[in-house]
């Protein structure tokens, strides 16, 4: 019965090449109109009804163009649909294999876990507390503090999240730690790292990652793909918009958990202060967008949380664990 239902649902949401554009038009048409209407109404004092009619006519013209397969607008839409299609889902086990492989390289690059079970458990508690209120609460998350003087944190696909002892020392309270971990959890939830390597040759013709796909030519391509991920996450950084998206999600997640979302802003502000005297290569400074811009965006987001200051900060509990971080 369930299988029949699943088949029925699957049939009703077919996303073949022919359907993609049709569905996209159905999705984008109201959105496009909303944008037109918003633009028109935002300036309502200066617009006359004739201008609104013009906007409606322009919208109708846009629809005409979208329905014409040879038009520039139609081709642009096809491109957008192609990106949407290719950034969709991967089975969790394959994602986790990529994440674990990258984590091994993370230890090679940044150092081994700090040998303090209490500290590691504490970071896992804060991390899991925010993760279960994140955009993707149904997967396992593992957090590790590695011994590195660099100011850094990054996430591997599938939910393994690194934070350096250097950044742990910069952080001053639990809500600040929650903000940073929630930012990394958001990258996992939005599958930002995977989206950055989706065009890797390894994925051509691969159904899912199995022992067989790790052999021979495909195995070599897998290694190259992990190399590309390292390049992105350890050196170049993700797309700026992904970072801004992760900041926004992090503040929302921290707030929903009960931490002051301003904690993230406080860490970013402190990082900005110490930026000039810190190592840049391989740190947050080289892999993340300019801090000033991020702080500005986060302040805008903070307006959504009028009671933020009344939420948890917990500097004392954080500092109990911070003491055990080696120099």
């Amino acid at each position, binding site marked *: 019965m369930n299988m029949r239902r*699943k088949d029925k649902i699957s049939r009703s949401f*077919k996303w073949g090449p022919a359907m993609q554009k049709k569905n996209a038009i159905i999705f984008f*048409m*109201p959105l496009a109109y*909303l944008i037109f*209407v918003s633009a028109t109404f935002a300036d309502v004092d200066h617009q006359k009804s004739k201008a609104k009619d013009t906007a*409606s006519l322009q919208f*109708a013209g846009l*629809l005409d163009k979208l329905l014409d397969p040879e038009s520039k607008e139609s081709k642009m839409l096809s491109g957008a649909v192609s990106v949407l299609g290719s*950034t*969709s*889902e*991967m*089975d*969790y*086990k*394959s994602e*986790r*294999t990529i994440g*674990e*492989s990258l*984590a*091994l390289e993370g*230890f*090679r690059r940044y150092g081994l*876990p700090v040998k303090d079970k209490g500290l*590691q*458990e504490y970071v*896992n*508690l804060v991390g*899991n*507390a925010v993760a*279960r*209120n994140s*955009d993707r*609460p*149904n997967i*396992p998350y*593992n957090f*590790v503090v590695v011994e590195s003087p660099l100011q850094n944190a990054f996430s591997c696909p599938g939910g393994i999240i690194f934070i350096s002892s250097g950044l742990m020392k910069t952080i001053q309270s*639990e809500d600040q730690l929650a903000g940073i971990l929630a930012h990394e959890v958001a990258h996992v939830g939005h599958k930002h790292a995977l989206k950055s390597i*989706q065009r890797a040759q390894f*994925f051509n013709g*691969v*159904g*899912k*990652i199995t*022992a067989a*796909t*790790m052999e021979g030519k495909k*195995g070599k391509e897998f*290694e190259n793909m*992990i190399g590309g991920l390292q390049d992105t996450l350890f050196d170049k950084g993700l797309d700026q918009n992904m970072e801004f998206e992760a900041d926004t999600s992090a503040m929302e997640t921290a707030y*929903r*958990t*009960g931490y002051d979302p301003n904690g993230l802003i406080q860490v970013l502000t402190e990082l900005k202060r110490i930026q000039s005297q810190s190592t840049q290569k391989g740190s947050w400074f080289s892999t993340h967008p300019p801090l000033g811009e991020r702080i500005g965006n986060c302040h805008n987001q903070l307006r959504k949380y009028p009671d933020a200051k009344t*939420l*948890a900060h*917990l500097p004392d*509990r954080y500092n109990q664990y911070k003491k055990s971080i080696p120099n």
Partner: protein
Amino acid sequence: MKKCYFLVAKAAILFFCALPVFAGGVMWVASDNATLKSKPKASSTTLSTLAVGAKVSVLESSNRWYRILTDSGKEGWIYRGKLSDAPPSKETGDSGNLFSSMQSSSISADEAQTSRSIRGLSKETEQYAQKRGTPEVYKKALDQVLAIRITDKEVDVFLKEGKIGEYAP
């Protein structure tokens, strides 16, 4: 034909204007381990645990708590952080293609729990490590990281000790 577009456009306006009215009353469970309580207090009796994605109707709010009615007819209080005004995205299972399509099936609650209990390096990661000549110390480090198990109960105790979220006074 143009007239048809105008009709569609008018329908779109009506749809988007009406949306906030409906969104005000309906929300979705967006957090793992979301419990329905008998009173707007974390210490009150747990009536049930709601699944991520469950649709609920908000009846009233008190401080940081909402009184809700679930689709299955259960009524109680839930902490505001467990709800979202948009349905959460669904986790996907094996779909047969790495970057497959929008028709990927959503995994069930049982499958989600299974994925949450994955522990230790996968066979494929072991293969990768072997080919790369990854030193044993890194493999051991990752094994130790993956071995740390945090349960929902431990998270709840931790939040309670810190007076965080639903445990805030």
